[in-house]
């Protein structure tokens, strides 16, 4: 019989697969354990590497430091201090030792011995007194009192405590005496240590050794900043361990690992303490994530706030400093904002904090309207209640109440009038504050050579390098239509013809009057001057001579006033209808038809240099010589073709020319660009990458930065490959920005985000300074003046101001201007720098300077902003109250006058005195201006050491020297001074400030 076949089900064994899968499970668990502790916690390896590198760096640094310290200690001064210290310690040593001995050997043990029984007795007494106080029966009380007294007597408690107290007092006295003895030695030790600390650069050996000990027990843990109320958890320092180390660590010093370098900008950390601000509000990234570098930097696909790239690191500042045009320590961001404002991005793209004038105008008109409604409502109510009061049926009581009510309403209405007045002045100045990015095209007919217009529209940059005008990718027919429209829409009026001027004198005037602070001449490497305004190397080919003369004489002069209410330019006819002269300027700025505020000035920031007519003619004729010769301009007959006009109007409206230029009929054009206030946090799907989306995603630039960089580099990039008619193509013109400019603008846009921190983090300090910077940026004050340390004005860099003599002929530095001048005077000066209504062809304060302080015809608001700006910049108290000066006695007056006019005092040699012959060569302002121009405290500081307040000034230092606690005139003083006890500088200051 065949052997019985074994049942496969029973006899098969699963042990092998079970073993294998159990092993696999074990491996998987181990892997998950490894994954959990290491692979998703890379910071552990970072920290162990950091500990190693950092300790090696510290060893090497301390070696260097101790060597430095050794030879410092070898220096004679240190040794002298050290020996004096030892010597004084040796003197006081025996006495101190005696005191110590007495305290330790005698007093301390005695106190200890007495203390013990004393405490015991006292506690027993306390227990008894407690029973005494709480016992009810009188007899018990007396019994207890008796017990206490008996106890005190037994242990002679009173004597015991007295003796103990005396011992303690003795000990205290001795200790005090010891401190007295040690005082000189301690003082010397402090001076010696400070001597060392002053000369040792960087961390002293003490801090280094402290760091090294802390490194010995360096524990590997997550280092995080947790700001509870803002729900902010930043663990950046778990890998960036060196960020806030007291010692500066560089990539090189940390073995080539840039991650451990210390924060490149420590004083920024002082301003924004990471404990309160954390890291991610400024830098972006995902503070919580520590699983991988990519996740921590927020570079993974679904994180909305990625780390800013290196070149856009300052984007973080914009969020809290949104209202400022200039933020310290953020040059790229400032450049980005400046480009956004100056190159005209603001003209097409609304940006909340940039849109100061337009916003304010709309809010002011809106407030005015609501006030009118309120007033009419109240007057109507007053009339009604008056009717009711006079009604015989109302009781006397009610009548009296109604009358009170009526008065109250009238009072309130009058208060509104006050508000209306302020708003009116505000709206008057606002009309003057609004500027356009480009020149007014209403004057095209008067100022331009017709053929030039199409050539310019074709490619502005090719005609004038560095121009602000972007290129619009226009086809020829479009150019023709636009030129025709502009030509025919412009005002027909042309300025009176002007006689020719002398180009040679014009050239000298152009180079010295200060035009080069904004404009520039010469092309390519020969280019000289500022780029705030146009390069005038080819102005001759473009401009009309007579218009140029009028423009140079007074750039703000308009050919026709514009009435915003009627939305059109007024003509002489409108004035004649009300038999008024066709006269419109800052004083006659009301519209004859409806009384509203007129725009009586060109909306250009270009100021009037108050040049005389002949000088304007000279400069104009010089500028007319600046042109490329043999340049052929094809003539443009079509300019006057009416058929092209309507076509041109549609194109101009489509391309948004009216946003930058003032064009007849298109003054109120809406902005054609999208608002960019929150562009940085617009969802990525809303940024239209068009056909490049897939490519962008593959190449990794499907991000905000990718979009901004490419759009700025080539605004039509997202049209590539699209089938679009001319009208639908992307309209944004090409600004030919260089790479750093693109980086700065995209930094600005990346920073324009929804707030990720609560509003209380926003910077509200220095609001006056922030507002001031806006006005300074708008009128380019930094072209001529130095406004904050480290910034050099443009004129300073021009070659003609480099030699020794001409350096004194530069415009004055304005650092500390707030502390120098009286704000009231500054208001007057800024309103009219000539300081006189008749003699305008001069500088009010420094007539001897060729460079001319122009009149910007600032609005009242702007002038106040500047005054507050300078005061705040010099941290002066506002409003300004002049410090009272006690008047000069008769003797003091004669004394001061003698010193002032003496040969030894050089004052009248340089300062203007009023005598024309002397003033011709004077190099300093007249003293007559001083009383209401300067601040006494400043004058006194200036007299003592002018180089401190304005380095490189022509005013010499060392005029006074210190004698005792007062300052005395350094040179020989008239004999009468011998008996004058008081401070000479004060005397002279009070003399200067006595009103003549």
């Amino acid at each position, binding site marked *: 019989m065949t052997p019985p076949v074994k049942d496969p089900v029973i006899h098969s064994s699963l042990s092998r697969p079970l073993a294998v899968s159990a092993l696999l499970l074990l491996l998987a668990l181990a892997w998950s354990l490894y994954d959990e502790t290491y692979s998703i916690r890379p910071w552990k390896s970072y920290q162990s590497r950091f500990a190693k590198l950092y300790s090696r760096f510290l060893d090497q640094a301390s070696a260097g430091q101790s060597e430095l310290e050794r030879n410092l200690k070898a220096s004679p001064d240190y040794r002298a201090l050290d020996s004096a210290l030892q010597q004084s310690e040796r003197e006081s040593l025996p006495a101190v030792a005696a005191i110590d001995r007495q305290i330790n050997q005698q007093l301390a043990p005695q106190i200890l011995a007495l203390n013990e029984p004393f405490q015991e007795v006292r506690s027993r007494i306390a227990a008894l007194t407690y029973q005494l106080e709480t016992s009810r029966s009188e007899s018990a009380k007396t019994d207890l009192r008796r017990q206490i007294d008996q106890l005190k007597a037994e242990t002679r408690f009173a004597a015991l405590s007295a003796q103990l107290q005396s011992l303690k007092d003795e000990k205290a006295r001795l200790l005090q005496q010891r401190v007295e003895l040690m005082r000189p030695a301690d003082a010397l030790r402090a001076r010696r240590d400070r001597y060392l600390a002053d000369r040792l650069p960087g961390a002293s050996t003490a801090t280094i050794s402290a760091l090294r000990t802390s490194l010995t027990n360096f524990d590997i843990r997550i280092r995080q900043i947790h700001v509870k109320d803002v729900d902010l958890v930043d663990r950046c320092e778990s890998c960036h361990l060196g960020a806030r180390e007291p010692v500066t660590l560089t990539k090189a010093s940390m073995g080539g690992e840039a991650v451990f370098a210390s924060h490149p900008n420590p004083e920024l950390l002082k301003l924004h303490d990471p404990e309160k601000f954390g890291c991610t509000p400024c830098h972006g990234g995902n503070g919580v994530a520590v699983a991988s570098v990519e996740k921590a930097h927020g570079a993974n696909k679904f994180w909305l706030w990625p780390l800013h790239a290196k070149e856009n690191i300052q984007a973080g500042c914009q969020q809290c400093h949104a209202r400022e045009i200039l933020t310290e320590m953020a040059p790229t961001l400032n450049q980005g904002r400046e480009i956004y404002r100056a190159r005209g991005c603001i003209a097409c793209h609304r940006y909340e904090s940039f849109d100061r004038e337009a916003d304010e105008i709309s809010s002011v008109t809106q407030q005015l309207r609501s006030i009118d409604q309120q007033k009419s409502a109240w007057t109507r109510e007053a009339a009604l209640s008056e009717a009711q009061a006079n009604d015989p049926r109302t009781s006397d009581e009610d009548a009296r109440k109604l009358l009170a009510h009526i008065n109250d309403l009238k009072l309130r209405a009058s208060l509104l009038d006050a508000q209306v007045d302020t708003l009116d002045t505000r709206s008057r100045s606002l009309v003057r504050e609004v500027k356009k990015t480009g020149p007014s095209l209403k004057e095209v007919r008067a100022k331009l050579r017709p053929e030039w217009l199409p050539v310019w529209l074709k490619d502005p940059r090719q005609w004038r390098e560095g121009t602000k005008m972007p290129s619009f990718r226009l086809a020829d027919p479009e150019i023709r239509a636009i030129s025709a429209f502009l030509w025919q829409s412009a005002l027909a009026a042309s300025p009176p013809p002007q006689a020719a001027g002398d180009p040679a004198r014009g050239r000298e005037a152009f180079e010295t009057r200060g035009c080069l602070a904004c404009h520039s001449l010469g092309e390519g490497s020969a280019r000289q001057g500022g780029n705030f305004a146009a390069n005038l190397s080819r102005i001759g080919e473009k401009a009309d001579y007579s218009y140029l003369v009028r423009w140079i004489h007074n750039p703000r002069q308009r050919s026709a006033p514009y009435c915003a209410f009627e939305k059109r330019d007024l003509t002489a006819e409108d004035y004649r209808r009300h038999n008024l002269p066709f006269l419109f300027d800052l004083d006659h700025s009301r519209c004859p038809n409806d009384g509203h505020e007129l725009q009586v000035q060109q909306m250009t920031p270009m100021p009037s240099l108050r040049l005389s007519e002949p000088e304007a003619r000279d400069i104009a004729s010089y500028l007319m010589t600046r042109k490329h010769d043999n340049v052929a301009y094809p003539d443009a007959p079509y300019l006057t073709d009416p058929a092209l006009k309507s076509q041109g109007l549609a194109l101009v409206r489509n391309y948004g020319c009216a946003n930058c230029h003032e064009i007849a009929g298109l003054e109120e054009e809406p902005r054609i660009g999208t608002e960019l206030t929150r562009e940085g946090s617009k969802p990525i799907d809303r940024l239209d990458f068009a056909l490049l989306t897939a490519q962008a995603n593959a190449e990794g630039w499907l991000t905000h930065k990718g979009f901004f960089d490419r759009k700025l580099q080539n605004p039509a990039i997202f049209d590539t490959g699209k089938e679009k008619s001319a009208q639908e193509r992307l309209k944004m013109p090409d600004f030919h920005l260089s790479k750093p400019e693109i980086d700065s603008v995209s930094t600005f846009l990346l920073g324009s985000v929804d707030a990720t921190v609560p509003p209380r983090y926003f910077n509200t300090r220095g609001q006056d300074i922030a507002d001031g910077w806006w006005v300074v940026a708008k009128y380019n004050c930094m072209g001529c003046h130095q406004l904050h340390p480290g910034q050099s004005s443009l004129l300073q860099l021009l070659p003609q101001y480099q030699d020794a003599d001409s350096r004194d002929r530069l415009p004055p530095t304005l650092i500390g201007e707030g502390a120098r001048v009286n704000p009231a005077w500054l208001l007057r000066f800024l309103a009219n720098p000539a300081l006189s209504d008749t003699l305008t062809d001069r500088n009010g304060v420094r007539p001897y300077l060729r460079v001319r302080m122009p009149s910007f015809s600032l609005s009242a608001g702007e002038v106040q902003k500047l005054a507050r700006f300078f005061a705040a910049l010099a941290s002066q108290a506002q409003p300004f109250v002049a410090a009272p000066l006690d008047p000069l006695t008769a003797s003091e007056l004669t004394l001061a006058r003698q010193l002032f006019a003496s040969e*030894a005092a050089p004052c009248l040699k340089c300062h203007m005195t009023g005598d024309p012959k*002397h003033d011709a060569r004077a190099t300093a302002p007249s003293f007559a201006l001083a009383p209401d121009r300067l601040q006494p405290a400043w004058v006194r500081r200036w007299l003592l050491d002018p180089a401190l307040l304005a380095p490189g000034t022509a005013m010499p230092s060392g005029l006074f020297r210190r004698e005792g606690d007062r300052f005395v005139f350094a040179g020989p003083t008239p004999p009468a001074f011998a008996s004058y006890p008081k401070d000479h500088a004060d005397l002279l200051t009070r003399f200067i400030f006595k009103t003549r």
Partner: protein
Amino acid sequence: MKLYAVAAFALLTLISCSSDKPPAAATTELAPTGPALSPDEANGATLTGKVAFTGAKPPLSMIDMSANPACERAHKDAPLAAEDIVVNPNGTLKYVFVWVKSGLPANQRWAIPATPVVLDQSGCQYKPHMIGVMTGQNVELRNSDPTNHNIHPQPSLNPEWNDSQAPGGDPKFKTFARQEIMIPVKCNVHPWMRSFIGAVNHPFFAVTGDDGTFTIVGLPPGTYVIQTWHEKFGTVEQTVTVGAKEHKAVDFSYKG
């Protein structure tokens, strides 16, 4: 067999610890060290020469001192000529600064002479018009005029200062820390006053005098670039090689 194990182990530890990268040595540029030398007239070389001036002699321009009566009185007999271009009778140029521009050992320290160089203001004019001084050496400023002067050097490499000096006041001592060829000095009270100070790290320089000649002594042997500097006519350079105790003549010339 045990031996192998120990050796292997030692080798292993050696490899493991040497694998760390050597620490980057902190590099600080070499500050001049060693003793301060003074020019060794005995066996150093001496350089002499003159600065000729060819071409038309520019007309002497008179200084108009009318604005300042005190100065005018000092020159009422002979009006003062500007000293920007002074051509000596023998056709040589005065006030030309001649110095060794390069060729000296780089980090060699030179002894700073104790005697200060005097720059006097007399007759509303700087006397002399041009001086040479070592960096760190004192310049003694005197005011022997009855009127107040203010001394306003305008260096670009050294810190700028502007001190007034009362008539007959005690002299002021100033030093310049960095080498700078020709610091212009002016007086804001008397705009025509002008002088030039040449601050040099080493003592090998000279200013041509009335005969238009200059001598530099104690020059260690070596090849040097000698440069002459004039206020209006700019600089001229020549390379020259000198041996020990050699007397070398080096002539320069400027065209008017």
